[in-house]
């Protein structure tokens, strides 16, 4: 099958049977090498090219029916995404936050620590595992897409009870401006 007769027509004339016997085999080593190289390439590209998908669910936006749900101030943590990959967080309401707003960065020594701390604290105050921490993520116009994905990633790691991405309000922008994050 894969052996080619390379002896050509010349062998008939000469009638040298011995030389004809040797020339019937073609060395397939190089061909097999190439085939396996290509196999490796296609195997790797097909399995590794698939990107990851992070699922998010946004709060339902109903323009006609503006329902609001009251939750305790001490359970809500608001995270404001500012410029230069920095963020600011506070507990409670923007005009009377519980404790001063804190500026921090992303990553395990930044916001993750704070979230875990607050999560424990809230659970200690309410004493009910169903009334855990609620996180509101408010991205300002100066933040970029990576910040948003990073903070959602933190949500996936720390697993607060509820989190939502909501629009930023003017007092919060002023707060970011005050701390030079806008």
């Amino acid at each position, binding site marked *: 099958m894969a052996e080619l007769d390379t002896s050509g027509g010349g062998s008939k004339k000469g009638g040298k049977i011995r030389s004809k016997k040797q020339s019937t085999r073609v060395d397939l080593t190089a061909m*097999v090498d190439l085939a396996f190289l290509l196999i490796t390439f296609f195997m790797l590209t097909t399995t590794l*090219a698939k990107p*990851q*998908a992070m699922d998010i669910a*946004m709060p339902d*936006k109903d323009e006609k029916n503006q329902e609001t749900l009251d939750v305790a101030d001490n359970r809500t943590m608001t995270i404001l995404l500012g410029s230069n990959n920095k963020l600011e967080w506070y507990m409670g309401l923007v005009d009377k936050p519980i404790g001063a707003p804190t500026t921090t960065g992303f990553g395990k020594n930044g916001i993750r620590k704070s979230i875990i701390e607050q999560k424990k604290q809230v659970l200690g105050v309410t004493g009910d595992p169903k009334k855990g921490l609620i996180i509101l993520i408010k*991205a300002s116009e100066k933040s970029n*897409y990576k910040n948003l994905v990073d903070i959602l990633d933190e949500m996936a790691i720390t697993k607060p009870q509820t989190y939502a991405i909501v629009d930023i309000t003017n007092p919060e922008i002023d707060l970011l401006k005050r701390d030079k994050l806008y």
Partner: protein
Amino acid sequence: MPRIKIQRKSTAIDMTAMCDVAFLLLTFFILTATARQPEPLPVDTPSSIVQIKLPDSDISTITIGGEGKTFFGVSGQPVRVNMLERIGKRYSIQFTPEEKKRFSLIETFGVPVANLKQFISLDGATRSKEGFQPGIPADSVNGAASELHEWIIAARYATKEVNNKELRVSIKGDSKEKYPAVKKVIDILQRQEVNKFSLITSLEAEEK
């Protein structure tokens, strides 16, 4: 004395079977591999720890990058044809079967509807040149819904009609893209009550 003859023969190994198997596998992988088309807008996706793979079918991708340009793409050629027909009806443009066929081969595109006919007639190399496509307008004009909005609706209807499945929307954003550009797209999705969607990210090892 026939021993000498046998020894001489054994120096060469018969590779026919190995070669057969190798090429069989090669053919299989070539055929199953989805040819990765050059993206008109290369984006650098941010990394995350999620490990859920993106599904292959019934998915549409909105690419955001290059200072707020948006591109749109949907999987499945019959879905694309159906979507083009719907867009043609919506904007009163007639497409020939040839144009539909050509369009069904385009994975991602980013041109306003007005330039769509001209865009379809171009060849693939010109089309995928970086910076050639201006992006789909995502702003609403004179109160009418934006073109991106119409494309998403058309794609959702088309997927439902062709495959009888819900279309999954995913957003593929550049990590340096400013938030307002992303917000604009999310708002468009929310306006048509798509509250669940995916963000495409690349893999990152979880910090311990």
